[in-house]
């Protein structure tokens, strides 16, 4: 089966996020009532797996082994059956 996963990686709260802070200032400058921006990175991954559980397990492992450094990053992902 083919699965599509979207993985979101962002800095753990408590770490300053200069990209988010700078973006917040720019949005405020444009007149929006923005109080906070946190930047995150998204990966769209297509993978093959025998079951949804296997796909979930594989994506979770990818996040822990490469896509994040657990010292500073949080992650979450959405998984859908692909075509």
């Amino acid at each position, binding site marked *: 089966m083919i699965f599509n996963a979207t993985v979101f990686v962002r*800095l*753990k709260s*408590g*770490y*300053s*996020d*200069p*990209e988010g802070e700078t973006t917040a200032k720019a949005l405020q400058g444009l007149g929006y009532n923005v109080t906070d921006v946190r930047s995150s990175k998204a990966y769209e991954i297509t993978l093959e797996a025998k079951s949804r559980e296997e796909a979930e397990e594989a994506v979770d492992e990818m996040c*822990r*082994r*490469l*896509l994040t*450094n*657990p*010292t*500073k990053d949080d992650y979450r992902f959405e998984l859908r059956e692909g075509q």
Partner: protein
Amino acid sequence: MRRSDIRVLLMRAPGTNCDAETVRAFQDLGVQPRLLHSQRVFRERNLLDYDILFLPGGFSYGDYVRSGAIWAKECEYRIGSEMEEFVESGRPVIGVCNGFQVLVETGFLPGFEGRAKVPQAALGNSTHGYQCRWIRLKKVNKGACAILSGVPEDEILRYPVAHGEGRFILPPDRRDEYLRRLYENDQLLFRYAREDGSFAEGNWPENPNGAFHDIAGICNPEGNVVGLMPHPERAYFGYLMPQWSREEQPSEYGDGRYFFESVVRYVERKF
């Protein structure tokens, strides 16, 4: 061993830099530096033919995912066991800038109980974005890092930094414990300092990236794996130093010479 027999492997990858400067520094010291693309090292798997492993700075694989992450994982699955054997043999492994990031991502640094499967620290995005300029640092190691015993402790060293992701951080839930262990094991190597010799206390511009505890460089508990963000190879020759043209008698060597000379002397005596 004889100095002229010392073989240094400088591994490069797409996007690394300062490898030529590092070759020049090692050549000047009379050892044999060899600059090889990491793909060739992965193919030949001959890491153990060398006495020193040096991972240069730069932006390997375009800093995709995270600085050093892709190169680190590639090293891990291609030559991970050779790298472990190299480290266990006590030979020096040095990572500067991107090389430091790779050593953290592969789990060799801080390496509290040998190489960690999951990174125990990170080099996060700097508070002030990309910084490329001269900074000051002080060696704070008490002797555990024998390979850098020749770097003076009482001197304020000037090396350049050039990075966007160099903020040394420890996991928030274990920050105090890990800092205590770094002190107990004598793993702290360099801290960012002010001109008067005091530490930067997290303040910009002396601490260029917001690094926790002003940490610019650390080593493993055994002292033979060294990682630092500033570039000693960019401060090797006197003419590379910022005030060189204003000195009455320009010095032949800069502050980076201590670093390389110390590593070479260590290998000369130990092996």
